[in-house]
Structure formats: C-alpha cells, structure tokens
C-alpha cells in the first residue's frame, strides 16, 4: 500500500464545489477590472503631446551640438559614469564621492582578484569583489531600506547580533548567502555567490560593524 495513493485519495476530498465556484465567480464579477486599466491610461493632454515632441527635438538638437565636445573632452571617461553612476578606483575615493565613510569587508571567503568601486547617485556605495569563480557585493546606502537589490525568496532566514546591531541572514540549505542590516542612518548588505555558515558570516561582519 502506498502512502501517496492514500494522500491523493484524501486530497480528492478537496474540490471546488458548485457553491464555491458560484461565490468566486460572483465576487470576480463584482470586481471592477476596468478601473485599474483606466487608471493606467491617464489621458494625455494635447499640449503635453506637442510639448513632448518639442522636448524630443530640443534634446536631439542639444545632443547634436554638445556630443562632439563631450567626446573630445579631456575628462577621464573611465571614472565618469552616466546618470550619476560613478566608478572610482579606491574605497577612499568612493567614500569621498558618496560623502560618507565606506569600510571594506574583511575575512571574505575568497581572495578577490578584481574590485570595482561604484557610487550610485552619491546615495549608495557598492563594492564588487570577484575572483573569476566567486563574487561578493557589498552595498551601503543612505536610509534604512534594504539596499541589497536581492528579491529572491530564501527558505532560510536567520537573525544574529553583531556588536549590538541586528543582522538578517538569508540563504538555503542551512547556510547563508546574503546579510542585510542597518544602523538607522545607513542600510548595508553583503551578498556572496557561495553560501557560508553563520560563524563565517560573523567573522566578516565583525570587520565592518563597530
């Protein structure tokens, strides 16, 4: 006798009854789906349409005039990014660009061969460490919202305290790949490509949390 056949037999007791079906269809029938769609389709005033056209032409015109100058400028393009994203060459330069102190994580589980320091709109600092196989991404941003940019769902979530700062660890299979924490003024995250256990995380975090 197999358990799965018994389980399936039990599950067959759960089904959408005609009453349930009617209830759901009636509820859905009473919902206003059009309202949502209309909300997205805000009428665009005529004047704005033409203003948009004019703006497009203006941007093209200004771009055509200024682009050659920009390309021939003497600035070091490797350190100047677009839209406020600036790549710099050291953690000191990064701290200067974002205008707050950035401390590099120590005790990483691998030896980095390449490090990239980036400032995002002078609001968030990011350091990416790679060695070809493994990656570590450290972020520090103004405010207390999660800055990790990692929206994966993890089956494992742990809470630890390092020097009185609460750190949330996320991962799978009894090890963690992501740590997020905040000190109130800044939010921090460190994401690793390979999972490590809680003890190893504490060793890293102690180098960053005073």
């Amino acid at each position, binding site marked *: 006798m197999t358990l799965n056949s018994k*389980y*399936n037999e*039990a*599950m067959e007791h759960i089904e959408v009854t005609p009453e349930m079906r009617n*209830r*759901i269809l009636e509820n859905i029938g009473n919902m206003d*789906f*059009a309202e949502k*769609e209309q909300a997205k*389709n805000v009428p665009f005033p005529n004047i704005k349409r033409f203003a948009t056209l004019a703006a497009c032409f203006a941007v093209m015109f200004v771009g055509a005039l200024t682009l050659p100058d920009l390309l021939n400028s003497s600035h070091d393009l490797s350190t100047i990014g677009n839209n406020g994203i600036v790549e710099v060459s050291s953690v000191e330069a990064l701290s200067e660009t974002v205008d707050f102190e950035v401390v590099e994580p120590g005790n990483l589980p691998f030896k980095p061969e390449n490090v990239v320091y980036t400032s995002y709109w002078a609001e968030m600092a990011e350091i990416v460490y790679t060695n070809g196989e493994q990656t570590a991404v450290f972020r520090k941003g103004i405010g207390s919202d999660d800055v990790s940019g990692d929206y994966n769902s993890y089956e494992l979530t742990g809470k630890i305290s390092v020097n009185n700062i609460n750190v949330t660890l996320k991962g799978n299979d009894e090890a963690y790949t992501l740590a997020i924490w905040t000190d109130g003024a800044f939010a921090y995250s460190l994401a690793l490509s390979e999972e490590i256990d809680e003890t190893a995380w504490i060793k890293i975090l102690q180098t960053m949390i005073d």
Partner: protein
Amino acid sequence: MEYCLATERCLPSFVYILKKLFYFLSGILFENVCSQTDLSKTNDRERINYQAERMLSEYGNAVLRLAYSYLHNTADAEEILQDTLVQFLRTTPTLNTKEHEKAWLLHVASNLSKNRIKYNAIRQTDELMDELVAENRDDLSFVWETVKALPDKYREVVHLFYHEGYPTAQIAQILEMKEATVRSNLFRGREKLKTVLKEVYDFE
C-alpha cells in the same frame, strides 16, 4: 524667375514631407493611447468571466488543494484560489502552454499561501480532517494528519511531487528555489513521514 519656379516646384513636396513626418510622429505618440483606450472601452466583462470560469474548471482543484496543503482550511484556501485568479485576470501574463498556465497559478497560490502563514492570519479549522473522520476513513485521516504535521518547506514539495506529479526541476521553478533544495526537502520530508508512519505505508 527660374529660382521662383524651382521654389514653387519644391514647396508642395516639402509640405507633403512635413505632413507625412507629422502624421508619423503623431501615430507613434497616439497609437498606444488610442489602442489602450479602445481596450478599456471594450474591457468586456464576458472575456473576464469566460477566463475565470475556464481557470476554475481547469485548475480550480489543483490550486485549491495546494492552498489547502499550506493552510489546512477551506475558507482560507478558497480565498487564495480567488486571489490567484484575480491576479491572473489583472496581470494577464503571456503563457504559451496550459502547463505554463498551471505552473504560474500554482506559483502565485504558493506565494499567497505563504504570505498568509507568515502573517499568522489563518483559520484554525480543518474540514478535510472532519470529513475523513466522519467517513471513518482512519487510514486517510492518519496520512493527512502526518503530512499536515510536516514543516511547510517539506510539505509543499511532497504535495507538488506526489499529488501534482511534477518533477523536481519544475517544482524548483514553481517555488523559486534550487533543484538541489527541492530534492533535499523531498528526501527529508519522506524520511520524516517514514519515521512517523513506521513503514505502514511507503511512497512509490
């Protein structure tokens, strides 16, 4: 004189080109808005009702059972089923096959169920258990009670693997986790079941 004639010859074509350019740009700007307006005007209730009925007929039981496996009561499972359908009707995802459609619904239902557990907002009744007990199906109530007692992460893979018949790779996609994790959870879930059921039953 020649200059004037040349201007007269060129001017109409220049105006024509300008008109064409204007119509082209207007088309780009207005087309999307117009089509969306038409769509909202023809936001036919019939289409939505038809979709809802089709979804209920084809996947209602599967979604309801998955939700029940998480929440253990009919009222909550029914709400998850309804919310899942509403999310489908609102987002109208592009899904090429019925398998994808079902997997999408199970994925959403799983997330909605877990959210409900997370916020501890589930009811404390178990109509399935009541029904099995009323029918004197001790064998089934014993099995359900054992599966129900599993941790959520084991129960969800056990349900999708044994009841829905999904391979571990597809379960990994539905639950957004690594296949290795699915395999490990499935293994551990089975081990726990074996321990409790003391080999009265076995999974195939």
